[in-house]
């Protein structure tokens, strides 16, 4: 296979994101392998080393899974290949701003 294999890790089969272990440019098509299958994803954004991108479409308000566990929820709809980070993912724990004294 002539196609270049990029360094990407997807921790668990039902995760909705994968981590880039090398910087990836927008427009790159990458193969994301996990225990069950290989997903082909075209990146919509450039992804820095250590950052995440969506491997499946994620709806607004949906839980985002990594390590097979919830790492937060989508604050808006996220398309496959989009950068997933603090601009579209919010942690759900310790949110005193939402349910605390001033919330």
């Amino acid at each position: 296979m002539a196609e270049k294999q990029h360094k990407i890790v997807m921790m668990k089969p039902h995760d909705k994101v994968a981590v880039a272990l090398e910087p990836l440019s927008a427009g790159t098509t990458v193969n994301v392998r996990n225990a069950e299958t290989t997903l082909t994803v075209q990146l919509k954004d450039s992804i820095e080393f250590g950052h995440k991108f969506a491997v499946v479409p994620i709806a607004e308000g949906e839980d985002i899974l990594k390590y097979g566990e919830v790492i937060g929820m989508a604050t808006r709809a996220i398309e496959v290949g989009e950068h997933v980070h603090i601009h579209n993912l919010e942690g759900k724990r310790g949110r005193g701003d939402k349910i605390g004294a001033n919330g």
Partner: protein
Amino acid sequence: MAQTDKRTFWGYRRPNGTVGIRNHVLILPTIVCATQAARQITELVHGTVSFIHQHGCAQVGVDFEQTMRTYIGMGANPNVYGVVVLGLGCETHQAKMIAHEIAKTGKPVEVVAIQDYGGTLMATAQGAKIAVKMVQEASMQRRELCDFSELIVGTECGGSDACSGLSANPAVGVVSDRIADLGGTSILAETTELIGAEHLLAERAVDDKVAKRVYEVIHAMENRAIQMGVDIRTGNPSPGNIRGGLSSLEEKSLGAAAKAGTRPLQELIDYAQKPTRKGLVWMDTPGHDIEQLTGMVAGGSQLALFTTGRGTPTGSPIAPTIKIATNSTVFESMNDNIDLNAGTIIDGTETIEQVGERIFDEIIEVCNGKLTKAEILKQHDFGIWRIGPTF
């Protein structure tokens, strides 16, 4: 020297049977007002260590007790040969009370109070004279062959990045399992950075009481943010964590929990408390690097494993910290501070198990006297987790 089947190391046996891997004389300031004099004694007398802090007076209740426990634990740590307890005289955390508790270990303990000696200069001179004698006595002690079951190893991640949960933390998890299997103790801490991963640890608790306690300490920590009406993300993950690719506290926690390996969770102890059981133990501490390291060392850890993705210089005055990089870039860029590289896992040149083996070998070397980068750079950090107001 006969060494070793990887079950033993050369340590210093203390009168109460515990084993140190260092032989420090500690100048222990019980109050902020005595910290400068303590530092001056360490400058005068080779072989002594101390720490700067802001505590020791006008604290009440559980906060008073926690600071007390931390001071006593630092003096009682097996890496300390003897202690000069340096007080002012009028403070709530009385030097004599602290010295009395440390002396129960059987190690040499002396008290100097600045007000009793008419000021800083005479108290410094008196403390230094005592320290000279103690250091010389300490230098006569020989190392003896000790078993790994004597070790309490603190584990910590600081300056995390997205690689922490993929490389260095799982490798520390391998080591944590190995230590537990050898009859030693591995401390998991950073309650803040286990929020979102608590269910995975509760499942591994040895009994329902420990599992219940897991949820209690997690909720108490989370509720601090909720009661203050703040978003915990304003403090954690930190800006550096976020640049490193971590998006939420839950994501950071799932990576941090990898340090705990796979063995059963034996007990959950309070900050600066000594473990009562061997194997994997969770100490309730904040995520703050210095405060959690201090808690683990005051709880008797002779050594700490510290993984870092962004790079950190932190260390303890009395317990060596082995710094482990999560990625090769930070290992190279901050090599003055970092001892080992787990970034090889990300690079694809080593497995998690192979890095775990290297960390384990390094533990044996450091136990036998090899200095860590943090020790060489005199990174003598100390910070107490305050849980109450000052009056």
